[in-house]
């Protein structure tokens, strides 16, 4: 008997790194926002950010945290503001513990790296930096617009390389079977910024593009490889270390499409199963290691958890009501509906919100006029599933 089992799906962007060498750069080598700029990127939930050397993905930031959602004065000292303001910074250093390898050659200097970010709302962006300017090192603003004095933030957008669960997952004798859909990687919608772009700080300085990196040509080399799997703790960013992943042998069509995958479910209740799509960016494969992975899907434990709006909050100010919530699983979700509830008028549908989690997690925020509520002070978010069933969130007052 088929049974939907995806307790949660958490899609992240990651690149499997190679052997866990964990020999980072010796001298500090900055990686991050260093000119008071940031990414415009949903930050009401977990953010996944990851950097790796373009021609050697085993050199990368691995599972360590390099992004900041809020200023803390210690690890996050830049312009990340506060949680929920959609300002995200990268603040790290290639010399930090946990980073695998160093993208700097002692004799030839920095090598080009790729930074991939997936925001809490499921959107994302990619940035490529040459590391060629010894003064900048891997300053993110080198790839952001610059007007001669100020670096402007860049925004995340749809992350086309994320896999999408297209149907209900099913379990049988302790294994899970599901279908993943992969978009064509050659026609991505993901925002992609490079320090070879015009009107950037890199272009202003004229020091970051000696390799004439062509991001469009780079993407034309992209094609999928196999689906990989890994069992790791639920609810966390999966460790991208290559040795933690195994090849399912299931080949993804080079330009995208649907694939059926199956695997044994974890036996520990705290573990989840992750699937990831291998993306071949045109570099030689390191024996026994995958190419980069452009997204993973986290499959939950043995219990059923239908898509539901969690962490619902509502607050009013200046005649407006702001409602926010998050999801951990959007399998089979058709739409969210925001409803006002009052004893006298019953339910009042206020607005509909399309899911953005690609089957996985996402966070949402909508602002409505106080008058829309017709005096009601209670709100819920209803999940309308593709089979017509409904799942309501807990009600909150404002």
């Amino acid at each position: 008997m088929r049974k939907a089992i995806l307790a949660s799906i958490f899609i992240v962007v990651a690149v499997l790194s190679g052997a866990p060498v964990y020999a980072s750069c010796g001298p500090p080598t900055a990686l991050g926002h260093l000119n008071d700029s940031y990414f415009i990127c949903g930050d009401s939930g977990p953010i996944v950010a990851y950097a790796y050397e373009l021609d050697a993905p085993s050199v990368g930031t691995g599972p360590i945290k390099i992004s900041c959602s809020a200023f803390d004065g210690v690890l996050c000292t830049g312009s990340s503001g506060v949680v929920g303001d959609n300002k995200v910074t990268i603040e790290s250093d290639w010399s930090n513990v946990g980073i695998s390898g160093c993208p700097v050659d002692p004799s030839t200097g920095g090598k080009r790296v790729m930074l991939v970010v997936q925001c809490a709302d499921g959107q994302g962006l990619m940035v490529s930096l040459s590391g060629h300017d010894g003064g900048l090192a891997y300053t993110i603003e080198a790839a952001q617009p610059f007007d001669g004095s100020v670096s402007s933030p860049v925004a995340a957008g749809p992350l086309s390389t994320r896999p999408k669960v297209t149907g209900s997952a099913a379990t049988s004798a302790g294994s899970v079977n599901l279908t993943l859909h992969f978009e064509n990687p050659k026609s991505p919608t993901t925002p992609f910024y490079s320090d070879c772009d015009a009107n950037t700080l890199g272009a202003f300085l004229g020091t970051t593009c000696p390799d004439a990196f062509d991001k469009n040509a780079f993407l034309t080399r992209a094609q999928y490889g196999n689906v990989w799997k890994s069992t790791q703790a639920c609810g966390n960013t999966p460790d991208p270390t290559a040795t933690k992943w195994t090849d399912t042998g299931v080949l993804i069509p080079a330009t995208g499409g649907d694939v059926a995958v199956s695997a044994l479910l974890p036996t520990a209740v705290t573990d989840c199963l992750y699937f990831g799509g291998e993306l071949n960016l045109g570099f030689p494969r390191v024996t026994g290691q995958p190419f980069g992975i452009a997204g993973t899907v986290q499959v939950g434990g043995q219990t059923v958890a239908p898509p539901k709006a969690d962490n619902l909050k509502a607050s009013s100010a200046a005649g407006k009501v702001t409602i926010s919530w998050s999801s951990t699983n959007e399998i089979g979700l058709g739409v969210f509906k925001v409803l006002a509830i009052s004893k006298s008028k019953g339910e009042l549908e206020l607005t509909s919100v399309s899911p953005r989690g690609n089957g996985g997690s996402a966070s949402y925020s909508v602002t409505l006029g106080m008058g829309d509520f017709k005096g009601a002070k209670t709100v819920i978010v209803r999940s309308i599933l593709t089979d017509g069933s409904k799942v309501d969130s807990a009600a909150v007052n404002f």
Partner: protein
Amino acid sequence: MLKVRTARLSVAVLAVAAIIVVAGSVAIASNMGFKLNFAIQPTASLINAIGDNWTSIPYHNPYGTMGGLCSQIGLQSVIPRARVTKVDQSTNAATNGDCGTAAANSIPLPLDGSAVRIRQRGVCSNSATTFCNAPAVGCVSPGTCVATSVIIVGSHDPVLPVAPKKFCAGGTGAPPAGCPALGTCGAGIACGTGEFWFEVPYHTTAVTMADLCLSAGLTSTIPRTRLTRVRALDGVAVNGDCGTAAAAAVNLVLGEGVRIHETNANKTPFVPAHF
């Protein structure tokens, strides 16, 4: 032997005094205030250690934050900005602040006696307003890229103890005895510790690395404590292991920070010896 040491001490005192006077018109007042004219060697075009100016700041100083240091000693605060870096020896994590940014104003300078790294482009010898990278990148021939000069002020805290931690590389392997356990710095990762860039007092009694080893009680038997200075001019790291003749042959440089890798255990706090 004692006679030799006494002689060396006298020479050291004179040398320090001479350097201070020559370098920056320093007035050593009763409260031991310092004013040091310090050369910031320029970075190279590529990422390497050239231009890694590991700099000692007096323990009492008026700067407060990286941004304060930038603005008050005149580091380059518009693009191409100077960069100040500190390393927390509790995690070996580096924190960077670019001069002229709001972020730099929010990053405090170390208070544990550790030095900071300053990286900044130089200026051309034939055009003081033209920024350049070493050796002459960006300069019109025959100009070369030369150091910029900053004046660092402050005074010493004669009671501040300094406590280098045991040096641990960190990572995913089973950590050696005395190093942080796995998971300390994230899932399956042990923190690195003990990457300590010692802020050498300007009036230190130590002339050589060996002197510093002795005065600080660093480990001079195998596995020895390793001291390192980076010559910002050419990026070369010069090591001296405590208890070796090599350490006695490496002089400390006024204003420069020295890296201490204590190999045995967290070092018992010591108060740096000074005149």
